């Protein structure tokens, strides 16, 4: 998981990339077997400990999801991210606004 938060004129652009197969559960392999679903389902972003974004995601998100979000903030603000996939695997990151 890679995170970048850059402030410009009081607005922070937050970029998040999570390396993930994002299998929808409807695709088949060469033998015709259904590839089991495995995708990011939930995400939480907090700013200095307070909730900022709550996300619920479905199987239509691309492989290696790339999110861009915006919020009003300043340099030095602390961002915490938590994502969970459909196999209950967790992806977490912390970063400061630059």
């Amino acid at each position, binding site marked *: 998981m890679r995170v970048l938060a850059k402030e410009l004129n009081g607005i922070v652009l937050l970029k998040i990339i999570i390396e993930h197969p994002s299998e*929808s559960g409807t695709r088949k392999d060469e033998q015709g077997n259904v590839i089991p679903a495995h995708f990011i*389902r939930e995400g939480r972003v907090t700013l200095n400990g307070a909730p900022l974004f709550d996300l*619920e*995601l*479905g199987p*239509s998100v691309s*492989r290696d999801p*790339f999110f*861009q979000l915006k919020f009003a903030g300043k340099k030095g603000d602390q961002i915490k991210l938590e994502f969970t996939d459909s196999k209950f695997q967790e992806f977490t990151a912390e970063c400061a606004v630059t």
Partner: protein
Amino acid sequence: MKRRKFLGAGAAMVASISMIPSQLFAAWCEKCFSQSTIDNAFINTLGTRDFASTDKVTIVAPQAASDSSLVTVEIISSIKAESLYLFVEKNISPLVFQCNLHGSAEPYISLNVKLKESSLVHAVLKEGNRYYRASVHVNVLAQAC
């Protein structure tokens, strides 16, 4: 008898362990993301399918996509938002995401999504008890997913 009790207790424990994930992640709306038509997805997610189109919400997506497994869709709004939603009409599971905004969050999201085929893509914004929609049609040139 003792063995039976032991097995019973074990089964109860396994049952309680398997309950934990569903309790922890009960927030994920299984019904919203179920395989359905776009109308049912609107109703399951928002409770309504009647909302007016607006020019206050902008949805940006390429008119033609050569790789349907990676289409960048952007939602931009000039009005405040409580929640943002993205739907791909022709996908097996039309709802792509729902996002609740808190505090200083701006009503903006960009995300790459998969399209099963050429389809309308709808952005829905919720503010108070009102819904606003913006739609765009994306043409898929090559089947990738």
